[in-house]
């Protein structure tokens, strides 16, 4: 930068001081402006002595000028009382809890109002019932290829079972589907009518029950198809599409996520008798209590009996592994953030004292309760706020939403917990108010001869906090100085509570 830009800065600084003087009472304005301008000359000489302008120097000069606004505000009538009240309010533990509670209520209310979030949360309450497995022949993984014929399924279904109490079947094929926008090829699954009730899946949208004169069959639209083909229009459920030559009424929209193999666009629900015997598909089975006891891992080998009582080897895969719910994402991100926390801040509470004085047990319990309350409020905020962000619009409900939720949860938890710990370390152990009025004392160059760092004081007059500027072997962590009654004269004007 050039000297010309330096004069521009100087003009800006003078302008700031003049603006600040307008806030001062009229009878003192001229004298204040004169003093600020005189000091500005010295600040500039100290901070920016060279003709070449540096950003850092100009920043410091600007900070000095901005301080003039605070000076001017302090001069206004009752400013001291207002400032003190503001200080007391802003440092009180109740206000901290109140702010966190407000944030929690806001994020929770938002999650109830946003349809996408409501839907995602609803899915998390039970997208798929537990105890379900996908059955196929062991020649290939049932999750990747359909292997069971409808005839086999009908045979097993008809036989009494020890390990399974309910079955559903579906087969997948590419078919021509005609919608209001035209004709296209979709992946259509012909499923037994009990498939969704067996899964216990909550539909994203459900159409009202069809009238008695409605001859069309029922179908469930896939989540991604709903967004891709219909822009997530909530009026689509209840409308009719043509699959091949058959009219099909869309009864609802399936929940998002890869919860069943096949990447299906439309689930065509039919009675079991209507499923073509030759079709090859997937079998979903619900385990009995005995079946669950026998299943030790995510997969299990099954021996079934065919039509001629011949043994058939099958392979079952638990369906829970296919889904990743918002709460699972939250749990994982939370765990990672907590593991990373020591990397961004010290997890110590900084309870070291200059003397042997310790707060009483009730006060210590109170301090820990305050910490627990902050964490307890933060954790649901960390759940709901990223959920709002990731699923705020229904058309964004996709795998990208999961990543957005994951990253937002991780960052919010990491820096939220960091704030909780930093805030706790600066809370007076006696009254839980934040210590204020930081004063830089000493010089860094004298670290090894004397002490340098920052001192903060409790507005209630209970404690003085010493934070070393440069941690040394003899003064590495912050220390509290508990003030005795001899300090009372410093706080004679405050209405603080009694001494510990």
């Amino acid at each position, binding site marked *: 930068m050039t000297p010309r830009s330096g004069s521009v800065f100087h003009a800006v600084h003078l302008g700031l001081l003049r603006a600040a003087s307008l806030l001062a009472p009229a009878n003192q304005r001229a004298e204040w402006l004169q003093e600020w301008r005189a000091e500005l000359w010295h600040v500039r000489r100290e901070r920016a002595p060279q003709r070449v302008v540096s950003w850092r120097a100009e920043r410091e000069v600007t900070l000095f000028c901005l301080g003039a606004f605070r*000076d001017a505000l302090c001069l206004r009538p009752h400013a001291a009382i207002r400032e003190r009240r503001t200080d007391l309010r802003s440092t009180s533990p109740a206000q901290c809890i109140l702010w966190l509670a407000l944030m929690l209520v806001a994020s929770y209310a938002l999650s109830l109002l946003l349809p996408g979030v409501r839907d995602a949360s609803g899915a998390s309450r039970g997208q798929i019932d537990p105890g379900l497995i996908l059955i196929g022949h062991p020649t290939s993984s049932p999750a990747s290829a359909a292997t069971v014929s409808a005839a086999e399924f009908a045979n097993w279904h008809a036989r009494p079972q020890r390990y399974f109490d309910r079955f559903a079947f579906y087969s997948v094929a590419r078919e021509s589907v005609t919608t209001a926008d035209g004709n296209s090829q979709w992946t259509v699954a012909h499923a037994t009518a009990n498939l969704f009730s067996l899964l216990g899946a909550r539909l994203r949208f459900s159409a009202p029950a069809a009238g008695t004169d409605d001859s069309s069959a029922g179908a469930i639209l896939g989540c991604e198809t709903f967004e891709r083909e219909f822009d997530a229009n909530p009026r689509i459920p209840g409308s009719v599409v043509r699959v091949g030559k058959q009219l099909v009424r869309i009864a609802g929209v399936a929940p998002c996520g890869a919860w069943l193999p096949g990447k299906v666009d439309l689930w065509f629900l039919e009675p079991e008798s209507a499923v073509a015997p030759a079709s090859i598909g997937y079998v979903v089975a619900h385990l009995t209590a005995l079946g669950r006891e026998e299943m030790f891992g995510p997969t299990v080998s099954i021996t079934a009996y065919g039509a001629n009582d011949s043994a058939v080897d099958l392979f079952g895969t638990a369906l829970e592994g296919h889904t990743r719910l918002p709460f699972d994402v939250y749990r994982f991100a939370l765990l990672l953030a907590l593991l990373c926390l020591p990397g961004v801040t010290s997890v110590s509470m900084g309870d070291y004292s200059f003397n042997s004085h310790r707060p009483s047990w009730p006060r210590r319990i109170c301090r820990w309760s305050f910490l627990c309350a902050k964490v307890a409020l933060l954790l649901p905020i960390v759940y709901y706020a990223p959920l709002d962000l990731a699923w705020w619009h229904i058309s964004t409900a996709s795998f990208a939403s999961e990543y957005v939720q994951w990253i937002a949860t991780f960052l919010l938890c990491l820096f939220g917990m960091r704030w909780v710990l930093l805030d706790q370390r600066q809370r007076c152990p006696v009254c839980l108010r934040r210590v204020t009025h930081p004063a830089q004392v000493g010089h860094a160059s004298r670290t090894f001869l004397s002490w340098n760092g920052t001192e903060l*004081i409790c507005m209630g007059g209970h404690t003085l906090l010493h934070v070393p500027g440069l941690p040394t072997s003899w003064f590495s962590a912050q220390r509290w100085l508990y003030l005795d009654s001899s300090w009372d004269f*410093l706080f004679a004007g405050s209405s603080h509570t009694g001494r510990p």
Partner: protein
Amino acid sequence: MASEAKLSHTAAMILQAIHAGYVYGFGIMEMTGLPSGTVYPAMRRLERDALIRSQWERQSIADAEQRPPRKYYRLTAAGRVTLESTRKRYPLLERLIPSEEAKPV
């Protein structure tokens, strides 16, 4: 009574800094590390409580040095008494901001 003045921690530091020879606002800020928005209002309060007094330097001095005249601050007798009682309760104060006579030669 000066010894009964309602002093804050900040005010005690400012009193000690003025006593130590830092008589201008910016010098006090430099010494104490307090920001400008804190130092000047605190000094005004100290002046109101008659613990310090301010005075503009003569225009001729400023003209000779080609700069604007500056306001400087001095401790009053009451201010010295208050500072003395503050030091007894806050021994670190003198070590943090050593006064002229206490500075090592």
